[in-house]
Every structure is written in structure tokens, then in C-alpha cells.
């Protein structure tokens, strides 16, 4: 039993003894040394450096030690949501004001109190103050603003642009160059056009105003720009930068972050977005994001945290952040500092901020982005007329923000749970009385010793969290204020929320897509993986190690970056696939404009990412095939296929089948490729069930219960499928 004992000992030791290089931060109030304030932010580069510099200044000023932690943006919200309710996490965190709605609802943020007293009202510009306030309560200290502006190539456009039309009619542009480039398929970048036409995403009362006539006109205008090739197709952020930096776009719409990317590759000027003559001289007002120092409930209770948050908005801090971090600071007095006043870029952005509209921080706004994005993409692809797309968007918005189901009585569920518990106990007691069972149990004891560590680990760290996740499917609302609704979430999903059962985005249609996604992927994975495994297991094979290492590269490189590289290869204008097609005389294709090509793009990426796993498993399985069989196959050419079919494959099948079964389940739930490559394009048709669940959890109003119900349904579907397959394989088929 040495090994078992050893592994158990190691297991326990790793819990208690392993180098805890990072024991949870010492309690903030600990008497030893200076009081600490924890600060979280997602700044990078110059902004981060400027923040650190400001913190150094604060350190000299006070007794307080501020510990800053930079967190990847992608994990920021979920980390806050996990840590703050448990009393961990930061005292102060920097976050965009538009998330205030969610954070206030989830009690992640507390009112600023004396971090923002009335006497500070004159310290900040009025728009910023408005942005950090909700229902008359100020929820943070405004630090800096970000909004879109017009970057203009000085050589191509000598003077300030008053009307966008001047730019569009720019003379002397070489063919293939663009007067304007911006991320036209994003609602955030579309907002200035919408605002110029007098439209908005949400009405004052929170209704979905994006479906109104002015929106259709704005969309029609942008579609016209695309049709006339005045703006590039499928414009990603990178493409916009590259076009501008190489002088192939005369002007781009972008934010302060672009300045850092451009360096001194191109001579440019920044000005506020112009007016639009086509929109009756409406001003292209961009959305404004106010980065805000917010206090967690824990931080709001601590005077030193509040004092620090207040100081972050002070002139001293603002000047450092403006000068070193190039932030358009909200603190008015900072703009009198010579170094700030003389920074042309900063001043230009400051001007741009004046015409900007703060992004609504309501929950409805969060639910509005996705329908708006989809409508814009659909129109730009030429799939539908603006009116129809907007009508669809409105339906989608209603769907995402529909009223939550009423509370259900938990007694039914409790009765079922209680009854099954009693029935289970009765069943086990009766069985335990049977002598045969007792003997079997006694005979099982040695096996239990072998299985104990694994059982413990899986129960505690896999099954319990999954069960807790599954249980949330019976609730709606937030984690702090859940409401039991019984099976309402399931009913809503399975009835497609009142829409057609096979409508776009319905459970059944997405299920079909998911099943084909899984099937196609797994077939390619297995065929390619086993074929390469066979080649790499030939007994006398040169360079075996080299091939093996090179062929697992797709598995080794982080998939986030390679999936994006694949997406780039499928770009309509600048992708290498279309470049190759062009050399053979084919027309370039818009890969993400049709379901079949977008789906194929996803599959190609995922097959590429996943074949090395199957290959490695196949190589391991092939080690069970005796050398003689492999060698015999070498010599005996004629019957080689038969040997493979009737000897080798049956021999490796038992070890391959678990990997294939699990691989199939993982593929079923492989959302990140779909997210990164097609992003569900066109129009959500390539979304699979899990990506749909993620959208409910993270983009549509944070409906975790709804997402969990999706997860449980996925589980049910997969269980039924595995049952069915076991049945088909007959009595000797094993699990899985």
C-alpha cells in the first residue's frame, strides 16, 4: 500500500505544506506596519506606469500602503463578482462607469460617501459627475474619460474636417485606399452615426429606441459608405490601425488607445468627430466612458480606502495620470498644468469629450449591445434591409430583457427531494440487510482503498461545484438576491421563449448545429489523429521525435492566439486564404457571410487545434499492438488495409474509445473557437449550445440561472447520446 499511502500523503501535504508563496493578503487592518489599501485595475503600458507613479506619490504623502494589482480585462468582472461578495478582493477598483448598473445591483460597489463629498463637485467636469451618479447617489470618483475621435493623416487631409462628407469626397486617393476606416460592424463605433441622425439605442424610459426610423437612416447611410467602398470590409481593430499607419486610410475613428499603437509611424492630428451633412448637420456624438475609482463594500467601510479614492481624483494624481498616462482626466484643475496644457493630443481629446454622450449604465444598455451589433452586421452584409434588421433587433432585445418568471413555491421541489432521499435510504438499508450484498461490500473494501483519493478529489472539486452550478438553474436574479422559480428557466428554453421552435437561436436549432459541429470535428480528429499516429508508430522511422514535436505545436501554442490567427486567415480582403484563392484565379470569398463557410472556418480551426491530442492518444494506443503485427504489416503489402481494418484498429479501439467519447463531449462544449473565429456569424447561426449559454450568462443581462439551465440541458442531451451509443455498440460495448 506504499504508493497509495504516498499519494494520499502527498495530496494532504500539498494542501497544507506546499510553498504558499502567496498566502492570502494580510488583513488590511493588521497593526504591523502601515495600513494597506488594495487597488485593482486593468491598465496596461503608459497608463499603468502613470498609476504606479501616482501611487508612489501617495506613499510619500501618507502612512497608507496601496497595493495595486493589474488584472486581465477579460477576467476583471468575473473576478470581482467572485471575490467581493466574500469580503476578499479590492478596497478600491478602477472600472468603466457603464458597469455601475450591474455592480450596484450585485452589491459589488458601494456609494462613494466622503470619497466624493459635495465640496468636490466643482473639482470634476459635469459630464463625468453625471456618469458616476445613479439615482442621486455618487458611486465613485471619476478619473478619466475615453471616447472616440477622428484621427486624420496630416499629409492627406491638410485642414480640420467640419463635415464627414468633406472627407468622403477627398480628392487624389489612390485606388484601394480609403477616406475613412473604422470598426463599422460594432455598435460602439456605429453610435456616432446613430446619434448624428438623432437616434439612440435606448429611449429615456429605457425602451429599445434603436428600432426607430432614425436608426434605419443611420444604418442606410453606413451601408451606402460600404457599398461605395469608402470604408473597408470586415474591419477589425488591427486592420483599422494598419490601414492608418500605412497611409492607406486618410482618417480613422478610434480612441486615445490608438495613439500608443501608432507611435511616430504616421503624422496625424486628432479632432472631434465632425458633423454629418446627410443627417441634417447632426453632430457625430460618440459614447463616453468614464473610468471611475469605485469602492467595494469592504473598502467603503474603511476611512483610509475612501481617503485614497478621493485622492486619486485630486489634481496631483490627475496631472501625473494625464502627463505620463495620457489620460483625459476628469479633474478640471489638472488642465491648467503646463505639461498637460501643451499636449496637443490630450487637448484634442479633451475637446472630443465635450460632445460625447455618457454610455447609459443601465442593465438595459448591456442587453442592447448584442442585438444592435447583429443588426448592424446583417445590414452591412447586405442580408436584409435596415428596417427588417432593426425589427429583429427589437425582438431580440425584448427576448433578453423579458420580465423574470414569478417566484415558484419551493415546496414541490423540497417534497421531491425529501421523498427521493427517504426512498434512497430505505433502499440502501434493505440492501444492506441482504447477506449477499454485505459479502460483496466486504469484498469491495480493498478496491475502495485504491479508489479513495480519486473519489475524494472528484467529489469535492468536480462534482460539488458542478452540482452547485446546476442548482442555480432553478433560480433567477442575482446571486445576492436569488428567486426560486422552479423549472421556469427550462420551460422558457424548451419552448424557445414563445418564438418558433426552429427559429434562429432556438434551443432545437442550436442543438442541430452543435451535433453537426461535434460529429464533423470528431470524425476529422480521429481520422487525422489515427492516420498520423500510425505513420509515427512505424517501427523503423527516422526523425520520429522531430515529427512528433512539430505535430503537437497546434496543441502547445495557446489557442487564443492561434484561433485569432485562423480568423485573420479567413479575412475577406486581407486573409491569406483568399490570397491563395486569388493566385489560382478564384474570386475572394466572404467566409463569415454564409453559414456553410463560417461553419467550415470554425471546423478547420478546431480540427487543427484538436488533432494532436487524438494523435498522441493513438500513439499510446498503438503501443499495445505487438511489434510483430506492425512489422508484418510492413512486409505484407497486399493485405495491409485488411490488417489495419481487422487487426490493428480493433486492437487499439478499446484504448481509443474513452478518448473519443470524452473528446466528443469536450467538442460539444468547445465554445472558445466559435467565439473567437466566427463569433456566431452570420447572425448567430454558427453558435453552439454552450456559446448560447455563455451569451446568456455574460452578455445578456447576466442571467446565470438561465445559462445554468442551458448547461443542464446540454448535460441531459449528452447523457442521452452516450446511452444511445452504448446501446448501439451492443452488450460488450463499455462505458464510455
Amino acid at each position, binding site marked *: 500500500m506504499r504508493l497509495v499511502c504516498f*499519494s494520499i500523503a502527498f495530496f494532504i501535504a*500539498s*494542501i497544507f505544506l*506546499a*510553498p*504558499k508563496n*502567496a498566502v492570502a493578503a494580510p488583513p488590511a487592518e493588521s497593526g504591523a506596519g502601515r495600513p494597506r489599501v488594495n487597488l485593482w485595475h*486593468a491598465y*496596461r503600458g503608459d497608463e499603468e506606469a502613470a498609476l504606479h507613479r501616482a*501611487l508612489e506619490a501617495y506613499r510619500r504623502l501618507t502612512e497608507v500602503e496601496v497595493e495595486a494589482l493589474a488584472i*486581465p*480585462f477579460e477576467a476583471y468582472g*468575473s*473576478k470581482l463578482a*467572485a471575490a467581493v461578495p*466574500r469580503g476578499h478582493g479590492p478596497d478600491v477598483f478602477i472600472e*468603466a462607469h457603464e458597469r455601475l448598473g450591474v455592480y450596484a445591483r450585485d452589491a459589488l460597489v458601494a456609494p462613494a460617501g466622503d470619497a466624493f463629498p459635495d465640496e468636490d463637485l466643482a473639482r470634476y467636469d459635469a459630464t463625468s459627475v453625471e456618469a458616476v451618479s445613479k439615482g442621486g447617489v455618487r458611486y465613485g470618483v471619476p478619473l478619466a474619460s475615453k471616447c472616440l475621435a477622428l484621427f486624420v493623416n496630416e499629409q492627406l487631409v491638410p485642414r480640420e474636417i467640419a463635415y464627414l462628407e468633406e472627407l468622403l469626397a477627398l480628392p487624389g486617393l489612390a485606388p484601394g485606399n480609403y477616406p475613412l476606416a473604422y470598426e463599422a460592424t460594432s455598435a460602439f463605433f456605429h453610435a456616432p452615426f446613430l446619434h448624428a441622425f438623432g437616434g439612440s439605442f435606448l429611449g429615456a424610459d429605457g425602451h429599445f429606441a434603436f428600432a426607430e426610423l432614425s436608426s434605419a437612416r443611420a444604418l442606410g447611410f453606413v451601408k451606402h459608405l460600404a457599398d461605395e467602398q469608402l470604408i473597408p470590409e470586415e474591419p477589425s*481593430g488591427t486592420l483599422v490601425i*494598419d490601414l492608418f499607419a500605412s497611409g*492607406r486610410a486618410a482618417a480613422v475613428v478610434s480612441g486615445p*488607445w490608438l495613439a500608443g*499603437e501608432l507611435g511616430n509611424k504616421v503624422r496625424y492630428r486628432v479632432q472631434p468627430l465632425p458633423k454629418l451633412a446627410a443627417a441634417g448637420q447632426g453632430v457625430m456624438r460618440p459614447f463616453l466612458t468614464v473610468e471611475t475609482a469605485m469602492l467595494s463594500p469592504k473598502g467603503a467601510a474603511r476611512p483610509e480606502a475612501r481617503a485614497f479614492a478621493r485622492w486619486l481624483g485630486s489634481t496631483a494624481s490627475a496631472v501625473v495620470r494625464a502627463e505620463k498616462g495620457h489620460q483625459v482626466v476628469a479633474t478640471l484643475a489638472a488642465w491648467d498644468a503646463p505639461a498637460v496644457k501643451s499636449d496637443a493630443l490630450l487637448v484634442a481629446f479633451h475637446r472630443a469629450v465635450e460632445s460625447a454622450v455618457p454610455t447609459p449604465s443601465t442593465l438595459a444598455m448591456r442587453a442592447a449591445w448584442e442585438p444592435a451589433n447583429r443588426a448592424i452586421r446583417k445590414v452591412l452584409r447586405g442580408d436584409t434591409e435596415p428596417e427588417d434588421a432593426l425589427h429583429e433587433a427589437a425582438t431580440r432585445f425584448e427576448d433578453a430583457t423579458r420580465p423574470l418568471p414569478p417566484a415558484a413555491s419551493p415546496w414541490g421541489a423540497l417534497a421531491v427531494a425529501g421523498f427521493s432521499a427517504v426512498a434512497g435510504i430505505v433502499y440502501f438499508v434493505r440492501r444492506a440487510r441482504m447477506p449477499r450484498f454485505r459479502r460483496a461490500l466486504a*469484498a469491495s473494501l*480493498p*478496491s475502495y482503498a*485504491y479508489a479513495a*483519493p480519486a*473519489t475524494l*478529489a472528484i467529489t469535492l472539486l468536480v462534482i460539488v461545484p*458542478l452540482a*452547485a*452550478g446546476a442548482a442555480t438553474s432553478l433560480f433567477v436574479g442575482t*446571486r445576492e438576491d436569488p428567486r426560486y422559480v422552479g423549472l421556469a428557466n427550462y420551460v422558457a428554453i424548451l419552448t424557445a421563449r414563445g418564438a418558433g421552435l426552429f427559429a434562429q437561436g432556438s434551443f432545437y436549432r442550436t442543438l442541430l448545429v452543435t451535433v453537426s459541429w461535434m460529429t464533423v470535428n470528431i470524425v476529422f480528429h480521429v481520422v487525422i489523429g489515427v492516420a*498520423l499516429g500510425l505513420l509515427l508508430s512505424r517501427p523503423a522511422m527516422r526523425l520520429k*521525435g522531430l515529427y*512528433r514535436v512539430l505535430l503537437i505545436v497546434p496543441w502547445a*501554442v*495557446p489557442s487564443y*492566439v492561434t484561433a485569432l*490567427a485562423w480568423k485573420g486567415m479567413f479575412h475577406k*480582403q*486581407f486573409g*491569406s486564404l483568399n*490570397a491563395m484563392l486569388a493566385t489560382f484565379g478564384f474570386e475572394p470569398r466572404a467566409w463569415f457571410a454564409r453559414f456553410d463557410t463560417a461553419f467550415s472556418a470554425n471546423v478547420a480551426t478546431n480540427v487543427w487545434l484538436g488533432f494532436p491530442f487524438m494523435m498522441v492518444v493513438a*500513439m*499510446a494506443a498503438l*503501443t499495445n499492438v505487438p*511489434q510483430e503485427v506492425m512489422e508484418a504489416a510492413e512486409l505484407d503489402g497486399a493485405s495491409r488495409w485488411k490488417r489495419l481494418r481487422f487487426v490493428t484498429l480493433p486492437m487499439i479501439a*478499446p*484504448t481509443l474509445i*474513452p*478518448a473519443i*467519447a470524452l473528446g466528443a*463531449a469536450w467538442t460539444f462544449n468547445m465554445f472558445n473557437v466559435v467565439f473567437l473565429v466566427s463569433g456566431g456569424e452570420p447572425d448567430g447561426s454558427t453558435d453552439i449550445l*454552450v456559446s448560447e449559454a455563455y451569451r446568456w*450568462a455574460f452578455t445578456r443581462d447576466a442571467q446565470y440561472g438561465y445559462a445554468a439551465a*442551458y448547461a443542464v440541458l446540454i*448535460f441531459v442531451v*449528452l447523457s442521452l447520446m452516450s446511452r444511445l451509443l452504448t446501446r448501439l455498440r451492443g452488450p460488450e460495448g463499455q462505458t*464510455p
Partner: protein
Amino acid sequence: MTGPRFTRWAEGALVHAALWGAVLAALYPVLWVVSTALSPRELTVKPRAIPWPSAPSLENFRTVVGATDAAKAQLFLTQVGNSLVVSLATAFIAVAVATPAAYALARFEFVGQKASLRTLLATQLFPTVASAVPLYLLLDALNLLDSRSGLVLVYAASAVPFALFQLRASFQAVPPELEEAAMVDGATRFGAFRLVAVPAIRPALAVTALFAVMSSWNEFILASTLLSRETSFTLPVVLQRYVGEYDAAWGPFAAGSILVSLPVMGIFYVLQRHLVAGLTSGAVKG
């Protein structure tokens, strides 16, 4: 004699050609990543089939490797160390925990065997949309938040189900006669397991370990949720920092991705040497 010899030679050439084709297909998308990594600022404005930077430079690699914390102490090597420790410990624990359990599942009959196999499979069918927060609560209760040990436990536990299935199938492929012979010679059941059965499934152990290394090496969501200090971050968290809300520093991100994949390939190179046929063949009739 030239006939069969030539066929053999031609066949070998064909196999190598096929493998080089596969290698090209495997490396081509990575070339774009390499190209981005080597360019101070990649310009993609011309559609190209072969990615190569116009002015290659190692600037992005320097940015990644030279990352420092607020106190100007170097971070990258510490974080590489974190990732290595976490991945290797995960692999070790996952394999150590799964091997005896897989053996029991393969060789013994016990009450609850079928149910445990079904449960194991079930854990893999459930998407992990919402398990980050329950895990956070759990580690909080165990006082293991923000420690590498806590992360290792979570990773190891999630790698165990696959390991169990894989190792169980491999144990089943080992002829039981081998262990029976050992026990006739006086070995205990556990001795037969340790000295005969475990060495016989070395390839599967290697694959299982590799799988555990991989799944923890590139994991981002849990690592960033559970760790709260720059010095305890693992590499995926560090890399993801280059992607911001509005823009991303793709150059350093790509450079970091390449650096991150090198140790994994090293680990694989070591492990793949265990993927050799013939460990059990010949031991029993054949």
C-alpha cells in the same frame, strides 16, 4: 532484389512526404503568430500567402521577458516558474491519484463500480459555465485561495476523470496473466500492481501526464479568478494582460505565446520517448 527494396524506399519517401505535409499544415497558422511576434507592429494591409515580417525584431520578446512589477523586480521568470510548478504538480497528482483508482476499475469488481463509471462520465458531459464561483467558495473555505496549491488541487481533480478512463482502458489491455504470474512468484496484489501493471502502461501514463500538463498550462479563467498576486500568476494570466478592453498588444501577446509553448514542447519531447511499442508484447503468447 531491387524491386521490393525500391518499393520500400518509395514507401518511406511517401510517408515522409505525407508527414512533412502534415507538419506544414500544422505550422502554417503558427507562422502568422511568429510573424506578428517578430514585428514591432505588423502591417497586414497587403494580402499575403507567406507571412514574414518586413523588419524582424526581437522587441516584443524583450517586452515580455523584461516585464517587471511596480518595484522593478523581474516577473517573467517567476511566472514561468509558477506555471511549471503548477503544471508538473498537477500532472503528478492527477496521475498518482488516478492510477490506483483506474486499476481498481479495470481489475476488481466492487459495489458501485458501474455507478462510479457513469458519474465519472457525467462530470465530463457537464459544461463548466458556472463552476468558477462554487470553486472559489470551496477554496475560500479550505483557506486555499490565492495559493498555487489550491490551483493545483482544482486542476488535478479536473484532469482525473480523463486520466481514469485512459488508464483503465490501458490496464484492461494488459494481460492479467502478467500479474497472476507475479503473484504466483510471491508478490502481493499491490506489489503486482506497482511492479508489473504500472510499468506495463507507461505510454498511457505519459499521455495522461501530458494531458494534465497541457490542461493546466493553458488554463486562464480559474487561474485569473483564484490568484490575486502578480508573483503567483501563471503564464496564461500574464499573456491575457496584453489584451485590453479597447485594444490589444498583439506583438507581445504573440511573442509570449511562442515562449509559453516552448517548455510544453520540451516536456512532450521527454514524455514521447515513453511512447514505444512492445512493452507488453511478447510477454504473453502474443
